[in-house]
């Protein structure tokens, strides 16, 4: 056992940022003690580091799942409607959906800014909310691509989209590339919006905490 071994610094920083101030000493201390006394001798450095990162990810999930689950469910419902029911009009008007999501990000930022007293913590948890929901949507796309494809290729909308740029890709291959592009672009867009909302919400939450 190396008594000076350290878990990944970034994970320790994330953990310290997302915890309420009363837990900022004791909880990382418990994890560090477990890491050094049990996990490192039993698992070795790489797996012990992964164990530590897993504990941090679970802490993030515990603080964000209540926002991730409805957001991911809404995104999946929207995708189901767009893919199979009516590709020409979204299930939720885009401006309504955008406003609700933005308000949700601000709320997550405010709640966590108040809880942690840190803008960094609020921002991390807001972007974590987006990353979690987008990851679930990515899984949804991966699981539904081939089951949905036979139905989608019957729709004039999707046939037109497929032939928008003439090439010799099969429908399924084109759909895969389309999903990857949407995942990267949509993910980056959502990440920037959630980061901005997290900073704004975190500032408000921290100010509310200071006043309380």
């Amino acid at each position: 056992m190396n008594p000076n071994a350290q878990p990944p610094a970034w994970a320790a920083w994330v953990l310290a940022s997302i915890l309420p101030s009363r837990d900022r000493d004791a909880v990382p201390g418990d994890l560090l003690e477990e890491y050094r006394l049990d996990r490192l001798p039993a698992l070795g450095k790489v797996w012990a580091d992964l164990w530590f990162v897993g504990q941090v990810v679970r802490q993030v999930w515990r603080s964000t799942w209540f926002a991730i689950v409805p957001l991911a469910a809404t995104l999946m419902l929207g995708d189901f409607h767009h893919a199979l029911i009516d590709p020409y009009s979204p299930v939720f008007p885009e401006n309504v959906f955008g406003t609700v999501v933005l308000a949700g990000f601000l709320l997550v930022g405010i709640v966590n800014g108040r809880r942690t007293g840190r803008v960094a913590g609020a921002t991390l948890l807001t972007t974590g909310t987006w990353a979690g929901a987008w990851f679930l949507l990515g899984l949804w796309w991966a699981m539904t691509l081939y089951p949905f494809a036979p139905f989608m290729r019957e729709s004039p909308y999707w046939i037109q989209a497929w032939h928008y740029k003439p090439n010799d890709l099969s429908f399924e291959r084109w759909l895969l590339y389309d999903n990857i592009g949407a995942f990267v672009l949509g993910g980056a867009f959502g990440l920037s919006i959630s980061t901005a909302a997290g900073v704004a919400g975190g500032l408000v939450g921290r100010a509310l905490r200071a006043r309380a």
Partner: protein
Amino acid sequence: MADVLGSFEQAVLLAIVRLGRDAYGRAILKDVQARLERDVAAGAVHATLDRLERKKLVSSRLGAGTPIRDGRARRYYSVEAAGVRALHDARETLEHVWRGVTWPLKARS
């Protein structure tokens, strides 16, 4: 009637009872893991302790840090009177539910 406890909450409370003055986060985690015979996430224990403290079933105080924790303080927990009542109720409920049932159960063939 006191708070109705879930089985994980009971495991955490009983760990605090068993550990007495040494009941801090990691010691509670190890005790719960040993009793449940499975790996338990540290965060699950911390979240449960936080919830039990908000329900006023346990109280906590900060103790000194140690070198293995890079000097970070330990938070020590103790069971409050309401926590003891809740444990009694949980046990009584379980015994009441099982009363009149012969153990081990036999499946009908």
